[in-house]
């Protein structure tokens, strides 16, 4: 790298730092500020993951308990991975402009992200229940548990590490992909900085870089925070399974 380029990189690093440390950027009242964009980002992401959980978890629990739709459970995650997030976001936006049902700014993005989060949540939940030791379930039935009790008191607690691992993967994926929404709407949270900075060319590069750093930080923090949530939520006996499930499933989450 030549001296000139070296200087340019140092200049960029300095500008980025200046951008990030500007008190105005941290003004909680400014809609262009980092706190607002972060909250906007999390608002979209959390809405999407909650919606995905509400839709996928009960269905997967039910189907897995009844041993139904196994082929669906194993293939849905692969198909989900094959769907390009960018295409899906644009497609949901397009459908929203045509139906006029949900506006064009918030919900199309949230719904597209929900669709992306459904497969990993569904498959992990399904697999988690199916992998509960059959002997344990049999023993529970033998002691007179009803089917609903078997599901709620045996299968669900024992499956919870893997279920949470699936939700965690999906959540990180959603947080990462929310940024792409900045291309389609005025939302997109922290992705806004990257897209806006990009449009401003060389002058926007500090913004792009700062946005990218904020985005990466938010995603890693979201991942770490979810790890803590897992520790708090999980019963003592299965906590160790969570780590293993997480490592085993950490695939297909790039957005």
């Amino acid at each position, binding site marked *: 790298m030549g001296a000139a380029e070296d200087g340019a990189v140092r200049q960029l690093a300095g500008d980025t730092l200046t951008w990030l440390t500007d008190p105005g950027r941290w003004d909680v009242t400014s*809609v262009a500020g980092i706190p607002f964009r972060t909250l906007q980002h999390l608002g979209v992401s959390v809405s999407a993951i909650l919606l995905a959980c509400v839709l996928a978890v009960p269905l997967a629990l039910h189907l897995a308990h009844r041993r139904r739709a196994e082929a669906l459970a194993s293939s849905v995650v692969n198909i989900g991975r094959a769907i390009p997030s960018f295409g899906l976001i644009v497609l949901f936006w397009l459908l929203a402009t045509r139906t006029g049902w949900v506006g064009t700014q918030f919900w199309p993005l949230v719904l597209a992200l929900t669709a992306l989060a459904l497969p990993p949540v569904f498959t992990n939940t399904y697999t988690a229940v199916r992998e509960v030791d059959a002997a344990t379930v049999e023993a529970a039935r033998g002691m007179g548990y009803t089917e609903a009790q078997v599901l709620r008191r045996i299968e669900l607690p024992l499956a919870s590490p893997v279920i949470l691992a699936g939700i965690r993967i999906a959540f990180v994926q959603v947080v990462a992909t929310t940024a792409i929404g900045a291309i389609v709407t005025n939302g997109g949270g922290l992705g806004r900085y990257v897209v806006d900075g*990009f449009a401003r060319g060389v002058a926007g590069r500090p913004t792009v870089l700062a946005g990218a750093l904020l985005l990466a930080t938010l995603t890693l923090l979201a991942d770490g925070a979810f790890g803590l949530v897992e520790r708090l939520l999980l019963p003592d006996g299965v906590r160790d399974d969570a780590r293993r499930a997480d490592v085993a499933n950490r695939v297909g989450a790039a957005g």
Partner: protein
Amino acid sequence: MRSPFRSRPVVRALAPIAALGLLLAACGDDGDPEQTPDAQTGDPDDGAATDIPDGPEIVVSSFNFPESTILAEVYAQAMEDAGYPVGRELDLGTRELTLPGLADGQIDFLPEYLGSALVTGFGEEPPGDVDSGADALQAAFEADGVTVLTPAPAVNSNAFVTTSAFAEENGVTTIGDLADIDGGITFAGPPECEERDTCLLGLTDGYGLDVTFESIQEPAARLAALEAGDVDLILLFSTDAPLADERLLQLEDTEGIVPPENIVPVIRTEVVDAYGDDLVTLLDEVSAMLTTEVLTEFNLRSSEGLAPDQIAGDWLAEQGLVG
């Protein structure tokens, strides 16, 4: 019975992967990924011209919206037809990306917009008329080694658009009328608009409006936001097809924050020097035939799903500029 002895497993294991790699590499080679698929490289030998001097490849570039890409294609194909070697770096991005590219020689040719080039590119005052604008632009580009060619009659300027319903409700026909709306207005433009005198700064500083800016990169998304009532005003181009729809209204720019935006080809001077007046004559000839109606037609055809290179090629053939 199958022979129990077969080829070595490693060889069997690696062969298809290697083959796949080669196949993909081959694909990459002949489908040059540097090139936007919209742009089919014409064969330089196509043209009948034999008196083209040897010279560098002319890298044609464009902004990241269809009209600009179509215009770039028009000039590129015209040059190719005449026998000049042409390369393409289309859809490059905003002016913030194209002008540095032009200055450092990564690209050689760009169909510019006169007023925006001056105001946004060089921070100059908006020009009063086309001729003085062209002179000012030439002066600004001089240091970068770029030559400004004769502007075309075609104009495509920033258009500040609202819905007819909103205009009627608030009694608005000009941009200035927006000042009367209580609580100010929300305005959506592309990201770069926020810092431009011809855009947001024109509204706030030129008209003194109370504007909340929403950054929405793509015009379709801005239009969607306008129609959904998320914003009151959006930025479009005056040649965009939906402006013909009666449900939309382009507000009049009484203060003249939008400068004359004639299409003006700019080209690196070293390219002009290498190929001489014939090249300039050819490009001027093309520019002369580009009118605002033509631009509107281009945008319409684009919205019908036609590729930029096809729209450009059809038009050039119609005009008898290639053959």
